[in-house]
């Protein structure tokens, strides 16, 4: 029996982020968790921003304009990062959902790469079309 004062090497939740030199599944897991938490945070932030619709046209328009056209347009960088984590989460989530249904279990690593490449191409197309309108207003 081990004494209680002897060191326990359980890593805790910090271990979830230690994907360096691990398999690709570990990276996928760590990023899926991180991106999920970011998206949950954004979901509530989004509901908060949308609540300003009830205040009135001027308030809502000035809020969304300030973070898109200025003076706080540096938020666009965060927008791009948000789109990145959403597309990542969606692609890896699709792989996991298909694995959950028993599809592609043997090739799950290859599926990760294929799905991520497709989602990053879609992200590029989305960002191109979304931001080509930036100067339009």
């Amino acid at each position, binding site marked *: 029996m081990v004494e209680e004062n002897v060191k326990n090497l359980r890593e805790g939740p910090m271990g979830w982020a230690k994907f360096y030199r691990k398999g690709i599944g570990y990276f996928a897991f760590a990023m899926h968790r991180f991106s*999920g938490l970011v998206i949950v945070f954004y979901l509530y932030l989004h*509901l908060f921003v949308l609540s300003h619709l*009830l205040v009135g046209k001027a308030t809502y328009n000035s809020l969304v304009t300030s973070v898109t056209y200025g003076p706080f347009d540096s938020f666009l960088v965060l927008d791009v990062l948000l789109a990145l984590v959403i597309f990542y989460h969606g692609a890896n989530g699709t792989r996991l*959902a298909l694995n959950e*249904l028993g599809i592609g279990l043997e090739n799950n690593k290859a599926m990760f790469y294929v799905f991520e490449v497709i989602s990053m191409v879609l992200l590029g197309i989305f960002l191109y079309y*979304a931001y080509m*309108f930036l100067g339009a*207003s």
Partner: protein
Amino acid sequence: MAEVEMSSGREVRSSTGSLGRMFQAASGLFLIFFLGVHLYVAHIDFGHPIQFFTSVIENMHNFWWLAFFIVFVWVISYHAVNGLGGIIKDLNIGEKGKAYVNYAMVALYIVTVVYGTILAVLVARIPLP
């Protein structure tokens, strides 16, 4: 749900964790569709990277779009809260702590969908400027 006594004498009550994961996967697949439509409609289709007040109100005056966004809120909230609960339950918080997390997540889900639904309905009732 059944209860079995393990070799160690500890009793374990079976749960529906695997069904929960299946629902998480299914709701996630639905979200690919919902979010795809949302990103196109809100960030591309209107000729701006964002939707302004008038276009949001116009959009929400259509019954089908209103229904779409209400279902979207229900599904994304389920997926978000279920996922968040799953992450918290991976911590060393004991059996009781996990039971409290379950209650907290159900409460968070109810608050989110009720708020989201009321917000969508109220926005749909704003007269067009």
